[in-house]
């Protein structure tokens, strides 16, 4: 280890630094560029959202760009009606409530049936007595005729919503179908349906 001290190669002293200060102009330009850059960046950073991608610049642009078909609009309106009129018992998740005797709507064979005739009648006139939903019999609750106070269009909207929410995927319901069902059952008044009565009703295709 000692040989290197013997043949020391020539070299200069370790370097030192001068004390020249930062040019004032550079500091000013740096501050300016940083300020302007922050503004420009902020104007198009999508609010740091995970769902805004170039060339779009904010979430409003993304949502305004979404094409809404009449069906989607109908579902949107139905969702608002559901929240007001139905979610208290059937829950916002459509899972139903044991305490209130409200069967689930999500995945329910009554909701997802091929045609909407039975579910229209339930919404219009209400339901009483035991009903089997998803293999479980519900008998404690009575459903009020929530649809009675709604227009044909509103009933169609809300049923379209429950048939297409929470992973449900069934067809749309038109105000005409609701109107037809109302006319057919006009003699019934406001008497609630029972499950057995409903099973007599034709489902009606799409």
């Amino acid at each position, binding site marked *: 280890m000692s040989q290197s001290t013997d*043949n020391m190669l020539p070299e200069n002293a370790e370097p030192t630094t001068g004390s020249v200060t930062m040019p004032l102009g550079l500091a000013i330009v740096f501050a300016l560029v940083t300020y302007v850059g922050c503004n420009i960046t902020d104007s198009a950073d999508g609010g740091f959202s995970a769902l805004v991608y170039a060339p779009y610049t904010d979430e409003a642009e993304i949502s305004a760009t979404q094409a809404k078909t009449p069906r989607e609009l109908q579902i949107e309106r139905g969702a608002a009606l559901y929240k007001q009129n139905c979610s208290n018992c059937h829950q916002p998740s459509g899972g139903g409530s044991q305490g209130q005797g409200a069967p689930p709507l999500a995945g329910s064979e009554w909701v997802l049936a091929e045609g909407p005739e039975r579910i229209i009648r339930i919404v219009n006139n209400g339901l009483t007595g035991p009903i089997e939903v998803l293999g479980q019999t519900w008998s404690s609750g009575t459903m009020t005729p929530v649809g009675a106070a709604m227009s044909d269009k509103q009933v169609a909207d809300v049923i379209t919503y429950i048939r297409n929410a929470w992973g449900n995927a069934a067809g749309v319901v038109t105000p005409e179908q609701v109107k037809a069902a109302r006319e057919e059952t006009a003699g019934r008044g406001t008497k609630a349906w029972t499950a057995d009565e409903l099973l007599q009703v034709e489902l009606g295709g799409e």
Partner: protein
Amino acid sequence: MSNEENSVQTPAAIDASCRLPVLLLLASATAWLVTALGFGLFASLNFHAPGLLADCPNLTYGHRASVAWTAMLFGFGGNAALGITLWMLARLRGVNLRWPALAALGAALWNVGVTAGVWGFLMGDGTGHGAVDIPLYAVRVLILGGALMAIPAGLTYFARRDSQLYVSTWHLIGGLVVLPWVLVTIYLLLGNESVRGVAQATIAWWAASSLTQVWLGMVGLAVVYYFTPKILDCPLYSRQLAVLGFLGILVLGGFLGVHAGAPVPVWIVRLSAFAAVLFAFPLFAVWWNVRRTVGIRPFATSTDNTLAFVGVAWVCFLVAGVGTVLHPWINGQTHFTIFESATRQLFVFGFFGMAATGAIHYIVPRLVGAEWCCQKAFRRIYLLAGAGLLLYVVPMIYGGIDQGRVLNAGDEYINLPSTALMGMRIAFLGELAMFFAALGLMGNVFWAVIANCCEGCNPVEIFRMMKAAREEGGTE
């Protein structure tokens, strides 16, 4: 520690203290540089003979490309950066390197890690994470090896109390901090299931950018800031400008390099573009600082080889830096093209490689205790590497821009355009020149080590003895 140990040591004593680990690191660095450029050449062959080795599952183009890059980044870059860090830290703190045996063990482990990574690539274990696709088991070894070297470096750094630290010291510490940070992030997050989808890609970009721009950038700039004033024997122009460059690169480096069309939320793209624009300031600081230190004497007229290499490194840093600043404006055309390979090589080989070669040229003779046996060889290495770099970078940039034009035309894209292929063919000659320069460097370093450190097996002595013996035999 005794007071004696903490007092300023002579350069010779410091050199003696770090001889084993630093020589080990620098010598392996040159060997890895040869490996990297060799595999790079081997990979490029595929563009000229695409059917090559179609029956060999271990040597696909992808494997060769991964090996070339990892050998360059962790093999050459890692060994050289750590070797330079250990030596320069000890020199700048004026104390002997602490625990050199531990550092040597770390150096050995580091090389085991890189070797494991290279072997893993050939076995198909690359992780697929862009530029940091080194297998995680190799990363584990790298972390361990790096830690064993970081302990002596840290102890050396904290060995004395000073009110002033030289500019290069901060840069070395910056490099020492970013390396484990990135490696641990790669190890913990890129193999982790909870990091999903494009977050992996973003982390890989950050890691690659931090390893090149920040880690290699810090060590490369430490070399530039150290050797320029030392060899010219004048103070570095401005400490404050150096602070701007240092903090600028540390803060901005990791953000760089996200291209505008990337499938990541737009804020990541915007942030990266902002960082690229701000990068102009550290770039300016480095340019002005060195420019004013050197004065009107250009690096090129210096007869000192170290200074010549450092000068090329500085120019490459500036050119690559201008590319970085312009990235937000040009990446629409240059991303996905060979332009990116050219600028990466410009930074890693042109800037860091040349800086490290300059440092090796200065450090190794002091560690082995004898001047290079052949100074002329270094002039040739310098010319060969410089010419190779030009021959590689210029056609690749030109070809890449044209490839981008074709890609952006929106027509059918099946084959590389002929300009890009032609650029790659010319660049192949450049790669060849760089490869021979690396071979020359490795030969010189190994020769210096063997000739001066292995008394029993000194090939010069053996040759002389053999010659003498033959002459004796002849006269009989």
